[in-house]
């Protein structure tokens, strides 16, 4: 037994010693002067960038790169904790257009003034550039941008004698969805997000509400869920999904709908433009050669039901390696990176939605048949004027205020409940109005 106790003690001591030594070694990398820690999300474009890091380190032998890849929501929580406490764990962050204006105003981000002479800032798509700038200064560099659009099955449309207009109205979409639904064959007219969350169903429903003339808040920050526009939005959505949507739609997010569409079970799907490359990839999709694209629907009020989003690279103010971080960002979001991806992985794999020059490149336009509609969708979304009526906030499918994540998720749960039938549309809107009013009052917004 004496041996057992000694062994336990020894092993514990050894474990602490080994981990301490490892931490010390980590603090002093031997091969490069500067080691950048980069936090990023797990998606195809980001993973491709990780694979091409050797190009950056070959050009900058004094800089080493360490990647921290996390799921979007985990990453958001992780980097928010670090940046709010100035933990200094990351040198480059991947953040969305929602965070950029909020964090820039908190002085949590360093303005990107030194991206080099070759970094053509004026080539960035104006809408995306606006979304990552505050007071005319760029606080993050867009890595890839996206909007949302209509994806539809050309074969099913042809069979039903329907033609999808380039700018469909909601009336056309509703009518087509009903005609294309064949529940006995498990083919549903339309697949839309239903899973609760500010970045899930509320991204879609807020954009849809914009097209119906609704808004989250009036100019005095009063919640507007009691407006007739919101009632029409939610009623249309719930009725359409009940009649022409897949079963269990209240659990469906991007991935679930992608799987349904790829399996040939959705005649129409309105979602992120990034999905276009997935549904047309024959490796993943059974309907790859039968997909058409159109703009997100409208009601003739001047706003389409599409959003605007970009994943961007930014430098937290806690970083002590700003110069190296700027070099990395200039490499990853510059024109040369686009050329590098095209040369190694083909034009179809180039990160989309950030630069004007990409949409003037004939090679890219040939490789990505959805490119023009992606650009048209991005151009038609205006984060500074997202709604028909004026609003005090910036953001198309969100309001760029810190409270929105919580509010969006709470309202998303109410609307998901309306879709599943657990609540009526009126009850869901009343609950959304009441909870949003309470939270906004608590946060001191209404004037």
């Amino acid at each position, binding site marked *: *037994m*004496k041996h*057992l*106790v000694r062994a*336990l*003690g020894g*092993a*514990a001591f050894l*474990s*602490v010693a*080994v*981990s*301490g030594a*490892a*931490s010390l070694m*980590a603090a002093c990398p031997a091969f490069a002067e500067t080691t950048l*820690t980069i*936090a990023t999300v*797990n*998606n*195809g474009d980001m*993973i491709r960038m*990780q*694979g091409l890091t050797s190009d950056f380190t070959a050009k900058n032998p004094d800089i080493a790169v*360490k*990647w*921290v*890849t*996390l*799921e*979007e*929501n*985990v990453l958001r*929580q*992780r980097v928010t*904790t*670090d940046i*709010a*406490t*100035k*933990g*200094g*764990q*990351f040198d480059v962050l991947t953040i969305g257009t929602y965070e950029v204006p909020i964090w820039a105003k908190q002085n949590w981000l360093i303005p990107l003034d030194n991206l080099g002479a070759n970094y053509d800032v004026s080539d960035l798509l104006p809408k995306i550039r606006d979304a990552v700038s505050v007071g005319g200064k760029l606080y993050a560099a867009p890595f890839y941008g996206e909007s949302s659009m209509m994806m539809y099955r050309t074969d099913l449309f042809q069979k039903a004698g329907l033609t999808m207009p380039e700018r469909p109205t909601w009336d056309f979409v509703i009518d087509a969805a009903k005609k294309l639904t064949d529940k006995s064959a498990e083919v549903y007219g339309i697949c839309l997000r239903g899973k609760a969350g500010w*970045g*899930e169903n509320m991204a879609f429903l807020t954009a849809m509400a914009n097209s119906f003339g609704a808004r989250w808040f009036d100019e005095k920050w009063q919640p507007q869920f009691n407006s007739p526009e919101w009632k029409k939005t939610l009623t249309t959505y719930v009725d359409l999904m009940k009649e022409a949507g897949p079963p269990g739609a209240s659990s469906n*997010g*991007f*991935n679930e709908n*992608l*799987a349904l569409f*790829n*399996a040939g079970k959705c005649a129409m799907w309105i979602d*992120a433009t*990034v999905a276009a490359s*997935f549904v047309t990839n024959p*490796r*993943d*999709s*059974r309907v790859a050669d039968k997909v058409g694209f159109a703009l997100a629907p409208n009601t003739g009020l001047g706003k389409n039901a599409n959003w605007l989003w970009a994943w961007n690279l930014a430098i937290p103010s806690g970083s002590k390696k700003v110069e190296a971080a700027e070099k990395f960002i200039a490499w990853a979001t510059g024109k040369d990176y686009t050329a590098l991806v095209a040369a190694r992985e083909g034009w179809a794999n180039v990160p989309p939605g950030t630069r004007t020059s990409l949409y003037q490149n004939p090679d890219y336009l040939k490789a990505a048949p959805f490119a023009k509609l992606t650009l048209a969708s991005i151009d038609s979304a205006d984060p500074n004027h997202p709604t028909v009526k004026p609003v005090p906030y910036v953001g198309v499918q969100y309001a760029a205020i810190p409270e929105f994540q919580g509010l969006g998720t709470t309202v998303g749960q109410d609307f998901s409940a309306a879709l599943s039938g657990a609540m009526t549309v009126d009850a869901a809107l009343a609950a959304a109005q009441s909870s949003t009013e309470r939270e906004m009052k608590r946060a001191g917004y209404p004037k």
Partner: protein
Amino acid sequence: MARQASPARVLTTTIAAWVVGFLIFFPILWMVLTSFKTELEAFSTPPSFLFFHWTTENYATVQGRSDYVHHAINSIVIAGGSTLIAMLIAIPAAWSMAFAPSPRTRDILLWMLSTKMMPPVGVLVPIYLIYRNFGLLDSRVGLVAVLCLGNLPIVVWMLFTYFKEIPKDILEAARMDGATIGKELVYVLTPMAVPGIASTLLLNFILAWNEAFWTLNLSTSQAAPLTVFIASYSSPEGLFWAKLSAASTLAIAPILVLGWFSQRQLVRGLTFGAVK
């Protein structure tokens, strides 16, 4: 005299046990099967059970993208270190509470347990700031410390429960023979409680191995264990189930092997004192 079970009853019980066992094991089996599917097959409905195109490309992708060995070593060091230190602290603590209780022992035990009722996110920011100031972020020492402290109440409680089963008279006899407290602890109590100590040790190791909140929040790359490795394969945009399943299979493999070899000790420990 024990009642003899009829063959039909034995058969029914055996089948029921196998069904329950299979149901419990099914999620793990499904994860392993999914790891050998393509992303499209992993998402397809109705799902295919065995008749699909078997592929190891997910394992190749995971190996190519992440340093599995680095994360696995971190998991072993962090789970092993925190478990061993917790045991060294908890054995004397549980002894004193079981055999030399004070009027406040019960309150202390309940207070210790109450710390587990607080959601960890409630203390995330203070701990993050302390770790930042002491340079413990993304360090194995930091993770060993936080997991050790986090699991200590459960370890003390489990050991306390096992120790309570041991008759005081035996320890008193040792004392009569002149044993000091240290000798009593090492030569009398610990050997008698080996099954309990072993199962506590194993359960604590599994808890530390699976712990995701602190390991995700306090590590970035250098000290990141397998929980961080798994988290990097989830995505809200894109098909990832097959790759995530491959990463998860790799992550649970060491603990599954450990559990397999130590199952006898584990069961003995968990049923220790159950039948008197």
